[in-house]
């Protein structure tokens, strides 16, 4: 008997933290209260991506796309939509043209129009805790194809044709890693999945694992068959509990179905996958540090060569790929390398998942074809800058990347172009900044992160990062000197050239890149004691413009430290010693009588 309705509730971490689970439970309760449990299935899916509008509830077959749902809406959704067949109009997503927008797969919604979902093909579509739903959407068909009709060489050839490159950031050709590992001598080999995503603002891998864990398990098993490994390990940070939970369920279900474990699909091939929980050190995303951590050692990078493909986990040949890389594999096997290679640019094929955050209207998880421009991402998908402000720059590659300025909004995004601009693809964090962002402060923010996350092993990163941060801090506090710029360049060069791993090697990128495009802002801070974005508090001064002040007393009443005094209807005064430069008065004054300089 066909079901009447399917209710999909987003179970991504963002929506979960906005009470998606409560919404899910409430809807289920309401369905049961109406005794509709045999007609309606309520499913918690992976991330829909449109996090700005979460929590999201979607109802099939009507394709009703409900946004910003709260637990109390469950009653109305069930009573109106399910029982009476009337859409809850107030919850529907409405586009710029005031029209009801529905199916995101059909790109009805502007946020999804320029997206191309390969990696996220099942996110927001299936229940990640039910293997049948994955299988229903061609899940494990690629594994079956590989095990029953392909030779390892053919798998590698297909991936080579696809042009797939590592999505962890560096963009190393995936087929080469597999090929090196396949050809490396070793009685035991390992397949490792790097799920140690840790850039500030990034949640691509987390969402993939939460929304479609089997896509990674299937790909790792294919990799195992291809290179001759029987053991896989997923290194995932412990602070991703939902992803861990769903992976555990997925592994158990795959084993139950004979898709993992001994004699997979009756072919005689054995492959098992275990989870290894990381403690959340950013450096453990670096592959040699990750492997050390799995081995029970402190996560510190080792020099390469030897590369893990030759001497990896427990000194055995090891394939180590990132979550997103794996999530592409099954599709490539099924649709062919040529198909995959038809998407993207000359050297960067396929799609890329980005976590689009910052000052855009629509922040969320997006998947776009390589070669898309930043303008399309920010303005078409992202809906432009919040509050009608001006786009200033976007940071790709997280703390290892650099800024892309307005001049380069139309550059097609791929590995090579980003590098040319002084940034990197990275794992896919994309933070948009507007005119209120101070570029010195931005560089300082990222340095603060990498200084904290440095493993402390090599001197250039450990000491260089700290010194670099110190100089940025000095400049944002108005104490900068011209020689600091030279010193920053010198330290940056030493870090780039002499750091042991890419955490340290790329840590100065935000500094180098902002110095390249926004040197004038640095000079303003140093020479004029001015922060044009009004971000650096030590350089700020709020003053009341006597001519404009009408003495309404609003500022005085709002000031949290009572720094503003004055009689009613007479110009007020800010006591500069007491002022903490919070800017509340500036925002509160209706007469624009407060200057910020």
């Amino acid at each position, binding site marked *: 008997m066909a079901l009447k309705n399917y209710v999909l509730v987003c179970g991504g971490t963002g929506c979960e933290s906005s009470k998606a689970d409560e919404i899910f439970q409430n809807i289920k309760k309401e369905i049961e209260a109406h005794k509709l449990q045999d007609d309606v299935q309520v499913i918690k899916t992976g991330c829909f991506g449109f996090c700005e509008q979460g929590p999201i509830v979607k109802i099939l077959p009507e394709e009703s796309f409900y946004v910003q749902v709260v637990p109390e809406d469950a009653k109305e959704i069930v009573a109106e939509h399910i029982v009476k067949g009337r859409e809850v109009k107030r919850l529907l997503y409405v586009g710029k043209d005031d029209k009801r927008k529905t199916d995101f797969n059909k790109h009805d919604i502007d946020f999804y129009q320029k997206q191309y979902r390969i990696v996220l093909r099942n996110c927001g579509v299936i229940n990640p805790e039910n293997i049948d739903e994955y299988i229903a959407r061609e899940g494990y068909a690629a594994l079956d194809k590989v095990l029953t009709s392909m030779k390892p060489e053919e798998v590698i050839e297909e991936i080579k044709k696809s042009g797939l490159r590592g999505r962890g950031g560096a963009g190393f050709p995936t087929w080469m890693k597999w090929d090196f590992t396949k050809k490396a001598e070793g009685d035991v080999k390992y397949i490792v999945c790097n799920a140690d995503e840790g850039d500030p603002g990034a949640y691509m891998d987390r969402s993939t694992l939460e929304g479609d864990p089997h896509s990674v398990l299937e790909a790792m098993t294919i990799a195992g068959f291809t290179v001759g490994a029987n053991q896989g390990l997923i290194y995932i940070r412990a602070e991703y509990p939902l992803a861990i939970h769903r992976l555990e369920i997925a592994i158990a279900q795959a084993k139950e179905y004979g898709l993992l474990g001994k004699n997979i699909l009756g072919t005689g091939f054995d492959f098992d996958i275990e989870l290894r929980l990381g403690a959340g*050190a950013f450096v453990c995303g670096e592959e040699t540090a990750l492997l050390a951590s799995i081995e029970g050692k*402190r996560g*510190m990078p*080792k*020099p390469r*060569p030897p590369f893990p493909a030759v001497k990896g986990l427990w000194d055995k040949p090891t394939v180590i790929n990132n979550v997103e890389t794996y999530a592409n594999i099954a599709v490539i096997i099924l649709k062919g390398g040529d198909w995959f290679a038809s998407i993207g640019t000359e050297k960067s094929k396929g799609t890329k998942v980005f976590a689009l955050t910052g000052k855009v209207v629509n922040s969320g998880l997006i998947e776009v074809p390589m070669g898309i421009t930043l303008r399309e991402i920010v303005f078409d998908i992202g809906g432009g800058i919040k509050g009608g402000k001006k786009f200033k720059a976007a940071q790709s590659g997280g703390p290892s990347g650099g800024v892309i300025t307005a001049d380069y909004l139309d550059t097609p995004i791929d590995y090579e172009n980003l590098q040319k601009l002084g940034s990197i693809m990275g794992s896919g964090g994309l933070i948009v900044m507007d005119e209120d962002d101070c570029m010195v402060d931005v560089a300082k923010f990222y340095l603060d992160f990498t*200084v*904290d*996350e*440095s*493993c*402390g*092993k*090599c*001197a*250039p990163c*450990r*000491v*260089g*990062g*700290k*010194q670099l941060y*110190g100089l940025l801090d000095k400049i944002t506090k108005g104490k900068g000197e011209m*020689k600091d710029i030279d*010193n920053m360049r*010198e*330290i940056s*060069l*030493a870090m780039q*050239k*002499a*750091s*042991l791993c890419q955490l340290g090697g790329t840590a100065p990128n935000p500094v180098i890149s902002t110095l390249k495009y926004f040197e004038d802002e640095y000079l303003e801070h140093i020479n004029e004691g001015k922060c044009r974005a009004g971000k650096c508090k030590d350089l700020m001064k709020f003053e009341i413009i006597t001519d404009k002040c009408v003495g309404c007393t609003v500022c005085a009443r709002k000031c949290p430290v009572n720094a503003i005094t004055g009689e009613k209807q007479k110009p007020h005064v800010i006591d500069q010693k007491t002022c903490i430069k919070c800017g509340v008065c500036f925002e509160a004054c209706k007469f624009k009588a407060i200057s910020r300089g």
Partner: protein
Amino acid sequence: MSMVNIKINGTPYTVKSGTSILDAAKEAQINIPTLCYHPDLTPWASCGLCIVKMEGSPKTFRACATAVEEGRSYITHDAEIVKVRKTTLELILSRHPDDCLKCGRNQDCELQRLSAEFGIREVPFEKRLRDIPKDESTASLVFDYEKCVLCGRCAEVCQDMQNVWALEFIGRGFETRVAAAAGVSMADSPCVKCGQCSAHCPVGAIYEKDETAKVWDVLCSAGTCTELMPVVQIAPAVRVAIGESFGYNPGEITTGKLYAALRKLGFKAVFDTNFSADLTIMEEATEFVTRFTKKTEQLPLITSCCPAWIDYLEKYDHDMIAHFSTAKSPQQMLGAMAKTYYADQVKKSAKDIFMVSIMPCTAKKFETIRNDDMSSSGAQDVDVVLTTRELARMLKQAGIDFRNLPEENADSVLGNYTGAGTIFGATGGVMEAALRTAYNFVTGEDLKSVDFNDVRGLDGVKEAVIDIKGTKVNVAVAHGLVNVQYVLDKVAAAKAKGEKLPYDFIEVMACRGGCVGGGGQPYGATDEVRAKRAAGLYTDDEKSVKRCSHQNPEIVAIYDKYLGKPGSEKAHHLLHTHYKARKLYNK
């Protein structure tokens, strides 16, 4: 051995496959600067000074950790490389205190040398020192974390060479430091005090606890300051290494000058630990022959001269404690004999004698207070232990012109030694010395050739079968604690399976090369240096008139006059000790 063709700075070279860029450059007469690299260790690659470029690659490579590849062209120096190295060095210096003048490594510091070579006159970066208190909790070592440059050598030595795992990186980022895990003090950690960390430290961050002041106090001239009688003993390995502090080559024997120097310092009697090494052999060989002939459960017998090894076994291998020889180490035996046998002869009491021992070792400082058996004379048997490094400093402070000293002899009745005593300082030496005497104890005859070459040399584990007139004795010699575990595991496996034990007798020395490579020896030990020092001891042995401990006339006399027979009750009271299982962490 396959060869690879490479270019270094444009010039072609052919080197062995697997050679590091660092070593290949050395063959091309180019020294690439290093700070964290040490030939004993797997390159840890932390300092960043040895970076080189490879033509066609945008990356830099660490010369210490990267093997050369066929057809590659490497650039070891250009303007950018030198600039980056200098900046990196300046960064390291920006968090290192500039107190070279007050540092134990002044003029013998790898960082100081690099700073001089790079012509550092000013560090352009903010000084960022970290106020971390020193750890002086053990009797042996001081950890001055402020000076640490985090090269990682000590942690690697502690973990990979010594298998002790007392030192670990803790904290992260700029706050990273090397210290005992979990923030405990070194005394509460598994540290065995071997001091290999201090021997490998490139700067003055880890050093022996300096006790020279205590000795100076007692040595005050003409006995006016003190009624104590200062006497001294020198360990076997000191004589082939202390010369390095006075311009001699490693391995040059300076025994006679050392005796003379110690008398000039003011010691009233100069004894030789080589004598008590002979005494140790008498006790230990007796113990071995007894256990071996009775085939008791305490086989294999394991030597116990090395205090770091004792500490290790008491902490890590509780099951093997019964296998330990109960014989004290030569240092402690000499201390006990000096304060009893010798004291009687000079009509002093144990309390009146101040026994200083000169040791290649930092753990020996700890050994003097290891347990109550170390005070068998009624007073603490050895009062102060100075390492070779400390003595060298004292001799310089005293203005003694070491090189031009006339050679002197040790004092009897604790000064005469045989070749067997002197080789105690090298790995395999205790085994060899014991076998020379055990042969006599079993057969009543002396060996025609006393050389047991199978147990000599720097292989980590040496196994041999010794034929004592048809009876086979299986022996193993291990040095560097990581190698010990292999030997012990083999014994444990045989025991578990009820199979024949692989060994009857095991010698262990904690430090690589044995005491010649001890943690208290002059800095700069490498395998080459250790081999030279050991060769010095074997030369001393060959030149000795008597080469078996039981032939030492002073040994014969001490048993005749004082101890009775080896293993006698008196010998047991003064010359033997006991062991107990201890926890790895005290907290």
